[in-house]
């Protein structure tokens, strides 16, 4: 693996290169910054190649359709989907999960069946299952989280039991940074014929993700968390599962024949993409994928791991700081949640903001996990390959200042 000059890559990100004073952006788990190539591809799409996608017979429209479908191919290759039509463009990871909840689970759940999620799931991978369970008189079951912030599979003995109908877990926690043993869960689930949905919102674009290796049934992510544009995400599904799935949205582009009483759906994946496609979104996402692939996902993963180690040590050195989640190492991505004794995370984040350090404070859309941690919120610093050691030093300064301002005197 050729060494990547990550420091130089910072210049690819205009919003990071901009800053005077410098911006220490430690909120990539909320949304990543965008490289110039992605921004340019969107601009170029609108300014010089813009036309409606699908079924136009003039060159501009044909080209737009081709660009849209080429983006799908790029994405399919990126996650190593078996075939291109296993990739459905959605509005977001959130929509993708809702699509599976209402399109697959709602039509496959019997009264008394169970859907399993974990205690560390994002609301987007929790609420849709809660609703469909309530609708179908099914049970939402929770895989507990152990004291080190890992899935406690030992204490979920019925996870692969006879009523388990679907397992939906994240590959990387957006609060704890935990990398979950998805491959292992799928392997067990396969034996009991239980489909697994992987919420890969935090992992795709941050580490190599291979859907065939994971062998999962569904996988979802959002472009904006992987250097791509806002307003687009995707659902991967095996062909068999997608065929079992009803569309969430009905409308233009997803039907074959429309009758007054009944209609027949178009082929997959068009069936799941009602409405005019998000051309610029798909193009921007594909450019992001190309950009990340050129750097190399392994290199990105290693870079973030190095930074995470450094950040973990830096934070650990503070007596007042309580860190959540696994220790550093293979089972942890670049997300660090912490609290400072006696100080509300809002105050930490506010001081940080004033010092040019962008961190997040709150429940991070993980209220069930907050309950498990026994807090109402945490401060969170999250890293991407474009961060550097100065960003982490700046975070240390913030903690010092916060303790000075708000600490018990």
């Amino acid at each position: 693996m050729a060494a990547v000059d990550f420091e130089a890559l910072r210049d690819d990100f205009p919003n990071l290169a901009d800053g005077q004073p410098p911006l220490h952006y430690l909120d990539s788990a909320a949304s990543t910054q965008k490289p110039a190539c992605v921004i340019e591809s969107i601009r170029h799409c609108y300014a010089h190649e813009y036309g409606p996608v699908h079924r136009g017979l003039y060159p501009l429209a044909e080209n737009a359709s081709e660009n849209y479908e080429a983006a799908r191919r790029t994405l399919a290759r990126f996650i190593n989907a078996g075939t291109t039509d296993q990739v459905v463009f959605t509005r977001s990871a959130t929509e993708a999960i809702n699509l599976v909840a209402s399109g697959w689970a709602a039509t496959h759940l019997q009264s008394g069946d169970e859907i399993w999620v974990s205690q560390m799931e994002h609301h987007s991978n929790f609420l849709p299952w809660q609703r469909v369970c309530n609708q179908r008189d099914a049970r939402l079951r929770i895989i507990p989280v152990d004291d080190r912030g890992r899935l406690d599979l030992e204490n979920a003995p019925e996870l692969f039991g006879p009523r388990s109908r679907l397992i939906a877990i994240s590959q990387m926690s957006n609060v704890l940074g935990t990398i979950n043993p998805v491959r292992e869960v799928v392997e067990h689930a396969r034996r009991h014929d239980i489909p697994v949905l992987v919420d890969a919102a935090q992992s795709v674009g941050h580490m190599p993700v291979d859907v065939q290796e994971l062998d999962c049934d569904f996988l979802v992510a959002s472009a904006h968390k992987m250097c791509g544009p806002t307003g687009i995400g995707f659902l991967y599904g095996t062909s068999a599962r997608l065929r079992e799935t009803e569309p969430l949205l009905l409308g233009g582009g997803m039907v074959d024949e429309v009758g007054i009483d009944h209609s027949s759906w178009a082929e997959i994946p068009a069936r799941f993409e009602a409405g005019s496609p998000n051309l610029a979104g798909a193009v921007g996402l594909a450019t992001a994928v190309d950009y990340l692939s050129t750097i190399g996902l392994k290199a990105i993963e290693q870079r973030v791991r190095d930074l995470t180690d450094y950040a973990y040590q830096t934070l650990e050195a503070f007596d007042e700081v309580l860190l959540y989640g696994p220790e550093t190492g293979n089972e942890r991505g670049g997300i660090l949640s912490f609290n400072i004794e006696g100080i509300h995370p809002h105050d930490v984040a506010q001081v940080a903001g004033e010092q040019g350090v962008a961190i997040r404070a709150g429940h991070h859309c993980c209220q069930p996990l907050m309950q498990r941690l026994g807090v109402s919120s945490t401060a969170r610093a999250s890293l991407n390959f474009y961060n550097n050691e100065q960003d982490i030093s700046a975070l240390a300064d913030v903690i010092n200042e916060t303790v000075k301002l708000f600490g018990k005197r």
Partner: protein
Amino acid sequence: MTDQSIYRAVLLDHFHNPRNKGDLGDMQIVRRGSNPRCGDEIEIGINCENNTLESVRFRGRGCSICLASASLMTESARGLKLTQARDLIEKMQLWFGDQGGVGPPGMGLAALGSVRQHPARKKCVLLAWQALDEILDEIERHPEIVGA
């Protein structure tokens, strides 16, 4: 720390040395305000005599803004007639509303103004005030509670 900074001396002082904070056991009416999004949880209690807020106290947990605002609220509300208190709350809400051009409803509260540029924290500021508002509602509905 600049003048613009929301951690103005006044707010920090109220955070570190909260006024009227503590047990609400002997209060006539107590109301709770909470913001599940960030875990702020405040209780406000009052004693009222002759339509006047004789004492206003609080307890709870939250960020510095939330606690400082509660402390400031108790200070400015104490001694007010009920109608005056209502008026004050309304002015606070207006000041923190979307509209511009409105000033702080009292000199003592000016320090909170620095929070107005941080929309995400308006809720922290207003939590205590909304709880007081609910107390006033309760008094209107059941004046007998405060012996009127």
